[in-house]
């Protein structure tokens, strides 16, 4: 027991001695190059920092410039988009207006019967009256609104139809192929259409009573 404690004490003493030796052996200094590097780095940083207080004072300048640039960019983008959106629409409106001078009015007057233009879809809402108020005049039940499609292959030289109209049923897919804006969801559904025939017996226009009248399918 006593011997073991003595040996432990001896081990500890030897350990202390060795640690002391190791401490003496490991008295190293960092290389001088490290000091030079740090000195160089410090002087560079300090040179860079010389404008520090001014930079601190104008700390808002950078974000403000960034915000300004961003606002300009947003404004330019918005302007460009508006320009690209508006100009073609105005042009097309002008073109339509120019074309409209040579064409009959879309809304038929009380004296003249509705004339259709080949390839042009018109919506006949009945005889136009003088508007006395801002409220739209009530559409007479006897003359419902119609969607009129002049057929493009008609001969425009020949006078308009004789008023011979036959009622037919047409599938929606046929109407879509003619360019009528009807829903393509149920393409095989049949609707009631009026076919206006010309003097030559060829169809001049197709008119659809609005709202569309669907035919019940026979099962």
């Amino acid at each position, binding site marked *: 027991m006593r011997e073991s404690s003595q040996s432990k004490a001896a081990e500890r003493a030897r*350990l202390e001695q*060795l640690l002391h030796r190791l401490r003496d052996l490991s008295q*190293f200094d960092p290389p001088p190059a490290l000091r030079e590097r740090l000195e160089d780095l410090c*002087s560079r940083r300090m040179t860079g920092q010389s404008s520090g207080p001014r930079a601190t004072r104008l700390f808002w300048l950078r974000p403000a410039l960034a915000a300004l640039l961003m606002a300009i960019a947003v404004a330019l983008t918005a302007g460009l988009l508006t320009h690209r959106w508006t100009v073609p629409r105005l042009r097309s409106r002008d073109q339509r207006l120019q074309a409209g001078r040579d064409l009959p009015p879309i809304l038929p007057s009380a004296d003249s019967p509705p004339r259709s233009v080949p390839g042009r879809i018109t919506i006949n809402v009945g005889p136009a009256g003088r508007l006395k108020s801002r409220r739209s005049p009530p559409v007479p039940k006897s003359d419902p609104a119609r969607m009129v499609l002049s057929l493009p292959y008609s001969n425009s030289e020949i006078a308009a139809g004789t008023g011979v109209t036959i009622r037919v049923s047409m599938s929606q897919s046929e109407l879509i192929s003619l360019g009528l804006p009807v829903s393509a969801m149920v393409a095989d559904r049949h609707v009631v259409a009026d076919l206006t025939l010309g003097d030559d017996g060829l169809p001049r226009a197709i008119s659809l009573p609005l709202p569309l009248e669907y035919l019940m399918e026979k099962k």
Partner: protein
Amino acid sequence: MLWSGTRKRTKRSKDVIESDADLLARLKKRDERAFLALYDRYRRPVYRFLMHMTGSFSTAEELTQEVFVAILDAMCVGTVGQFDPGKGSMEGYLMGIARNLAREEHRRVNRLQPLDTVVESPEWDRLMEKFSQPGQDASMLLTTHSELKVLYRAILELPAHYREVVILCSLEEKSYQQAAAVLRCSEGTIASRMNRAKALLAAKLRRLAPDAVNS
């Protein structure tokens, strides 16, 4: 032994704290000379601590630079004033940074270097340069050399928290109080870790030293 020179050490540390405070005031003013004075004053303990912690001179050099670059960054940004001389010494502050960097480095490398390569490395040769002096008994030298080699290996093998205490208290000659300030724990913890570390080292010496001498 550690407590015998308490009064003397306290007086010395008070002087250091005062000068640390002056140095800190100059650092706050972004004085370049103050930074270099700080480096000159504390480069040795930081470098040696990192050398023992990493077992590599090159890594210790790199990490020492990082420690002082961290101070330089804080000086430039203006956060060097966050250090409170009343709570601890500047040396403790720097050693704390060094300790964190050593741990990060250990985590980053994350692989165990074979100890033989460490002990047989140029570091060990450089360490032993001073050891082999002429006029000493050859057999005695050989025995001590072998024991030192085993001890060096045993220190590197110690868990980090024991190694830090051994390096600070035995190899860097810090008091328990100073080590506690660096490691941010109580002096009692330092004492118990030191006791445990020494027991581990003694056991390793007992087990490995005879084989090393024979080999």
